[in-house]
């Protein structure tokens, strides 16, 4: 039974996102592609698909809305997986595999580099070990984690108060940030209690996924000096472990509330936005390939923000706006502001829906 559960978790949390993540690869320059990018892209597509399946069911389905959502989401995931496999297979047949290179090429490294990579992986392993063996108390779990369990056990969404179990009219404030529903869905599909999933399993997804984003940022920043990349990663890992200077920092959220939407937003969505801004705007002269896939990923990152927490939808737009302003100034291209505005359309739609439902 345990082996089946583990295999099922690998399927839903790693294999399915990786299949889906192949969809945008043909529209991303070949040199930038690697398995890490595919995995990140998988989550940036899967989570918005969850939003698209969930929100209409929350708003319009009266009874057993979670069951209806689960059917729609499964159908959307199946279609996305098939499309991803088709794209990957077609590219392979043409002799241009979707992922042409491994994420890490250990063979070409100097011993010093390998030693620092070892230090980084030791720090990462320490974080994963601690995430599994230590419990973190946070009052918000009474909302987030119980919300997933209520959904899983009652087959309804946002109609039962997670704190007490009393019925309520639709909880609009939380119902647009559907990450707890995604957790409930994974719990339903794997047969795992959603609290075990949130506290003991999901850190093994969110922590490596975040470091994959850091890796992509570092890889971009040190593309001319690849030997510096392990040093960047080791310092990033140290910063997470020692960043608990107060209960408010993103590092504290990352390692003490890893499974909550706010933590996913701050540790995965915001760094992914920075990464994509670098990818899109800091391209080398003569770099080949289209940027369409990267723009699409940035728009999907904005949608993923909405899956995690409503506030980050607004804040991510502020960050993209600030970045676009300065990039437009240094590049002397007003078009950057227009493109940044277009990529924030999902944020605008989300905020309008939020305000409309609140009125």
């Amino acid at each position, binding site marked *: 039974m345990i082996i089946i559960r583990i295999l099922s978790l690998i399927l839903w949390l790693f294999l399915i996102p990786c299949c889906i993540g192949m969809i945008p690869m043909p529209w991303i320059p070949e040199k930038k592609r690697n398995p890490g990018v595919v995995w990140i892209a998988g989550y940036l597509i899967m989570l918005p698909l969850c939003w698209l399946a969930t929100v209409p069911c929350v708003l319009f389905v009266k009874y057993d809305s979670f069951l209806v959502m689960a059917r729609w989401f499964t159908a959307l995931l199946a279609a996305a997986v098939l499309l991803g496999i088709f794209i990957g297979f077609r590219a392979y047949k043409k002799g241009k595999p979707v992922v042409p290179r491994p994420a890490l090429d250990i063979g070409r490294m100097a011993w010093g580099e390998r030693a620092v990579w070892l230090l980084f992986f030791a720090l990462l392993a320490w974080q994963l070990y601690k995430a599994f*063996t230590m419990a973190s108390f946070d*009052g918000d779990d009474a909302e987030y*984690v119980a919300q997933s369990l209520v959904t899983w056990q009652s087959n309804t969404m946002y109609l039962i108060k997670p704190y007490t*179990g009393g019925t309520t009219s639709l909880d609009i404030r939380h119902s647009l940030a559907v990450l707890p529903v995604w957790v409930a869905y994974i719990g339903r599909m794997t047969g795992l209690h959603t609290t075990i999933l949130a506290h003991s399993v999901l850190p093994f997804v969110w922590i490596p996924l975040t470091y994959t984003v850091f890796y992509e940022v570092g890889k971009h920043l040190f593309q001319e000096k690849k030997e510096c990349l392990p040093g960047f990663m*080791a310092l990033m890992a140290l910063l997470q*472990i020692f960043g608990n200077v107060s209960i408010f920092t993103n590092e504290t959220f990352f390692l003490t509330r890893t499974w909550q939407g706010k933590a996913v937003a701050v540790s995965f969505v915001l760094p992914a936005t920075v990464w994509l801004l670098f990818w899109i*705007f800091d391209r080398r002269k003569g770099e080949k390939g289209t940027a369409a896939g990267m723009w699409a990923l940035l728009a999907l990152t904005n949608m993923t923000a909405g899956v995690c927490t409503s506030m980050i939808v607004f*804040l991510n737009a502020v960050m993209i706006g600030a*970045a676009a302003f300065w990039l437009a100034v240094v590049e002397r291209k007003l078009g950057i502001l227009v493109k940044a505005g277009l990529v924030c359309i999902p944020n605008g739609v989300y905020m309008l829906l939020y305000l409309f439902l609140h009125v």
Partner: protein
Amino acid sequence: MYGIFMESVVIFKNYTGGRYLIVLFALALVYLLAAEKNKRRRALFVYMPLSLLLLFFFPVFRKVFVRLMGGEGDTYYRVLWLIPMGMIVAYGGVKLASQLYEKKGPWAGRIAFALAGAGIIFGGKYVYASQYMSKAENMYHLPQNVIDICDLIAPGEGEERIWAVFPTDLVYFVRQYDTDIQLLYGREMVEPKWQYAEPVHTIMNHPTTIDVEELLKLTRERYCTYIVFPNVKDKGVTQDPEDFGLELIGNVDGYPVYYDPVAAAVIEEQFG
């Protein structure tokens, strides 16, 4: 406006926790301002963070934020999340180390890298030493005594959900384990900052003694069949609950767990 600005200053101070990690960020920012030649990277790692920092202290922005968030000013610190402090510190540190490696020799680079690491360790705070972290007792990462109590009172397969009362220190966890157990009050009542009031919680939250007679008046009105009293070490009761017809079904880790047959009879009579 000045008052709003000063509030932002306090929020910033609380965010940084008075530790030196923020100094490391400032140093990295200054270093990149001087050393980063790539204008796009300057835009994203110097100008953007500085402008977001200015925005954070700008009173009008704070007003707009609070208005948009429905009056939730206590989450304003999240604006600081937009500044990629960690990436800037790591990039600045490694870039400096690499520059020294090339200009002054390998050892200079290695020492600079080690100093950056030491700066992070000594300027920061180890997350696993936090007062909120403890050794996990099970895969749920919930206190084992809560799980044992829930297993004792949870309805069986196909049975109706039940109502229960738990002491303040346990309410956070009950419904993370089993949502078939409904609570007369939950986390919303026990967070002091929200200042909500609920009569059952008021009785249970009495600092020294629980008035059993008053408590049962309220719980029976609301069809509550299970009552978990606070740990006997912490609080007493005015009278033995069994004098009022309650049945002690267990004592888990010092928490007495009672079944109320009177409330159960009321439910049976009214709902069949």
